[in-house]
């Protein structure tokens, strides 16, 4: 049987992404079902990530699955020297699907190669975080009515920000124009600019972050500039407020523009923006539930048709 694991969205076709969005729409209409009754979902978090774990576990629970797993790697045999392969093989004998967060890059692909059950990558180091990307794309579609031909502005830490890398790769089918706004230290890495060149994706780099720069944005994707990324703390102090989105910077924004943020935010978005029609980060987080319900069902071989004809809706 074809391995249905979800390691990255980068290899997904346009049709597959649109299909998953349609499935997430069904779950948004009816999030509470028994379609996974009798199934066991394992959530293995080798690196703590409370919000991603809660989102996945809620997704599984609301579909009637039972959830096993660990949230703290200190309790696993990995600390005794067990290989990832052995842990995955052991859990595969208990669960129907494994949702895995790991601190090592490429861990999800490797797990999917050795596991007899599907793996859902819930983040592997700085590499991929496809469920975040799926909920981002779902949110973009929900707010813009399309994924095609959008101006997507990415702001903040574009070097280590895994979410922006995954989004960039998955959007390649939809003719986006990316605008990268970041300090030199946290600029978009060459490998992703090369990726844009390979796929003919347009991009513009900016250092300024003001009302004029973002006036053509359809999506303003904010990320956190993390202090620990800087070798020179003076440099951090110098740039940290330069990438703070202030309310008055929205004066020239397009009416359809929405601000997204993978959360948690610290000081990237002024709190007064929360009450404007541009703020959409909390709805975005909620969409994580529907996107993850779709992803879990998809790797288990449950089709959109199954979801639409589901008689287990509560």
């Amino acid at each position, binding site marked *: 049987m074809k391995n249905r694991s979800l390691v990255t969205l980068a290899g997904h076709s346009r049709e597959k992404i649109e299909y998953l969005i349609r499935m997430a729409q069904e779950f948004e209409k009816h999030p509470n079902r028994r379609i996974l009754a009798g199934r066991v979902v394992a959530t293995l978090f080798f690196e703590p990530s409370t919000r991603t774990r809660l989102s996945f576990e809620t997704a599984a629970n609301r579909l009637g699955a039972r959830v096993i797993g660990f949230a703290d790697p200190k309790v696993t045999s990995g600390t005794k020297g067990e*290989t*990832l392969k052995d842990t995955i093989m052991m859990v595969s004998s208990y669960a129907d699907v494994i949702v895995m967060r790991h601190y090592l*890059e*490429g*861990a999800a692909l*490797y797990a999917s190669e050795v596991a007899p059950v599907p793996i859902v990558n819930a983040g592997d180091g700085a*590499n991929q975080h496809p469920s975040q990307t799926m909920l981002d794309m779902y949110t973009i579609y929900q707010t813009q009515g399309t994924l095609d031909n959008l101006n997507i502005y990415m702001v903040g830490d574009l070097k280590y920000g895994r979410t922006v890398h995954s989004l960039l790769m998955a959007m390649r089918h939809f003719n986006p124009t990316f605008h990268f706004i970041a300090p030199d230290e946290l600029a978009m890495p060459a490998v992703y600019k090369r990726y844009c060149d*390979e796929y003919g994706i347009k991009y513009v780099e900016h250092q300024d972050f003001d009302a004029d720069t973002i006036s053509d944005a359809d999506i303003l994707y904010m990320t956190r500039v993390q202090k620990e990324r800087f070798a020179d703390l003076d440099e951090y102090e110098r740039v940290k407020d330069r990438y703070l989105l202030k309310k008055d910077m929205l004066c020239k924004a397009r009416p359809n523009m929405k601000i997204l943020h993978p959360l948690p935010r610290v000081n990237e978005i002024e709190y007064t923006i929360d009450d404007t029609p541009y703020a959409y980060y909390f709805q975005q987080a909620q969409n994580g539930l529907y996107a993850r319900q779709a992803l879990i069902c998809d790797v288990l071989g449950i089709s959109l048709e199954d979801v639409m004809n589901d008689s287990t809706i509560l």
Partner: protein
Amino acid sequence: MMVAAIENGTVLDHIPSERLFDVVSMLHLEKMGNAITIGFNFKSAVMGTKSIIKIADKYFTDEELNQLSAVAPNITLCVIKDYEIIEKRTVVMPEELVGIVQCPNPKCITNNEPMKTRFRSVAQGNDILRCSYCNRDVELKDVRIVE
């Protein structure tokens, strides 16, 4: 400097000198009983210096030779029979290099599990390899071979 001709076997020429010992280890020459001549730091009009290896009574498979493209993509290979060159060829980058290149990313799963690395060349040219696991790119000049 002249190097004695071999009657039968394989000659690898135009090896970048800094890659000579990588080539030796990738072909496991140190474990062979055959007569082997190794020339190091020969003058070369094109390369500055080059290295050369002659292995008597040994013919390699395409797979063994093509893996050398990870460290010496411009190598020249001559197959010798009865002192004559019966075939002259270059190496071709395989679609995937399995268990050959070490990933430079210490946080890559391949550096933390007992497993084989996998690299592919990035579309434009063959001078950049990408780790199939962590997606880290490595330029050919920086490639390190798995120990």
